[in-house]
């Protein structure tokens, strides 16, 4: 979607991370995703342009993934600051007459849509597009277990660029795999061919069974995700 011609300085395409399924991500959507440990607001304008931004409003630090899409702009939910596709702030409601300076802007990563998946790259230069591997989205799940546990449970036949190929309930499928904080893993299930609603339902149940197996092996984040008041060590912490 935002793909440009490959440049010689581009980093390997492995730096694209699958963060969501295209199916269901309608124009106007805005969700929180993670890529390379970065907290990201992934949103689509009314005309369908995809953007991935650092999940932090430059004004008062509010997560932009809580914001709302208005036309071609994303607005922060805290004070309604509007940011355009180029990430520049165009409207500050508290000062309707003011034209915001170009210094006031969100920070953009790279976003890309291909093969039924939405991809984000936090590389400086936009990487080459991932290799073609068409897929039809079934569903996404967040699993309370880290990637190696999933790799141990599933019989992956081929793996490249964050996509695992395997057989699930006799169906050849693709699993987009995305690391979340605190030892969690986001997975995005696609079939290699268009399948019936019945088959999708069955695959969805298989995926849930897989999640239960993984979470039984690794009850990691039961403690990690609990809200522990972070002490002084977080002082120089997490200004993404």
């Amino acid at each position, binding site marked *: 979607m935002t793909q440009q011609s490959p440049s010689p300085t581009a980093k390997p395409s492995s730096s694209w991370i699958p963060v969501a399924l295209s199916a269901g991500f309608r124009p106007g959507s805005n969700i929180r995703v993670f890529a390379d440990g970065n907290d990201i607001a992934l949103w689509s304008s009314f005309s369908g342009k995809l953007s991935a931004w650092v999940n932090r409003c430059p004004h008062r630090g509010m997560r932009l993934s809580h914001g709302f899409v208005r036309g071609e702009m994303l607005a922060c939910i805290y004070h309604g600051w509007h940011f355009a596709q180029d990430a520049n702030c165009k409207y500050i409601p*508290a000062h309707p007459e003011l034209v915001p300076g170009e210094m006031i802007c969100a920070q953009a990563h790279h976003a890309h849509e291909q093969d039924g998946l939405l991809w984000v790259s936090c590389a400086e230069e936009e990487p080459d597009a991932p290799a073609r591997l068409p897929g039809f989205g079934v569903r996404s799940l967040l699993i309370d277990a880290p990637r190696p546990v999933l790799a141990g449970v599933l019989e992956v036949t081929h793996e490249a660029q964050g996509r695992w190929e395997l057989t699930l309930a006799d169906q050849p499928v693709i699993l987009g795999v995305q690391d979340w904080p605190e030892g969690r893993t986001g997975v995005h299930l696609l079939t290699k061919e268009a399948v019936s609603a019945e088959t999708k339902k069955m695959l969805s149940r298989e995926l849930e069974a897989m999640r239960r197996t993984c979470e039984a092996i690794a009850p990691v984040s039961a403690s990690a995700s609990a809200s522990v008041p972070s002490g002084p060590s977080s002082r120089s912490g997490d200004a993404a």
Partner: protein
Amino acid sequence: MINEIALNDWYPVAMASELKPGCRLNRVLMEREIQISNDGDKTHAFEGSRVLPLQIRYDHVWTSLGAPARPLFEIPEGEQDGRRLVACGRVHVRCSPLRAVENFLDIAHFPYVHTGILGAEDHPEVERYDVEIDDEKDEVWARQVKFFQPQAAKSAEGGIMADYMYRVPAPTTSILYKTCPARVGEWDIITLFVQPVSETTCDVWPWMALYDDETPFNDLVQFQQTIFMQDRSILENQIPALLPLDPKMETPTRADLTSIAYRRWLKRRRMFYGAQTIAA
């Protein structure tokens, strides 16, 4: 890091109404466990076996982990006859105590966070207002604050231009003086008393002193709770969790003059508990 400044201040830890004879309340103040107990005659505060200073004012119990450098601030208006005093209970928020206070000083978020109650999206403009750091009193003041509000208070009907004043008498306390719908010329008082549990978690104790004899107590508390629940969804999603005191970290505008003064005042007082002093 708990610095001396933070240690030597007064903090709310309970409502006075919680102090039933024989009760023993366990609380956390700046990462330290303390107990409040009532022996039927008097109320005491302890950290282990150490006795802590204690006073009961504004319907709340106040204590300190250190030796308070100054007396608890005065709210003279809050002790006027005819006002209803409303302690709203406690709201636990996973945010810096300083972020909670700063949000309370902010009006520009009303149209988006308190839509249809304290603000409307078609009236988002913040007019110029006056801000002052009063060096003598060691307080921050904002005056001449005006804002359009669809339902300024539980007792308000229809939209009004509400007049506000803000006062920060201590780093973790904010007092709002607001147009009183029931009595022209008087101010309703809404305060936020904040108990720092850690640098990134706090308990907020809203307290009001209103001229309003009509609205049932539960409705007043419910109104305040609704507003604060909306604020909490913001406060728990600000990055970083600590309040950045380095001006380069965030981008304020003229509408944020109170917040700018508040941050500057914290820095000047060296109140760094709950603050981020170095740009990450």
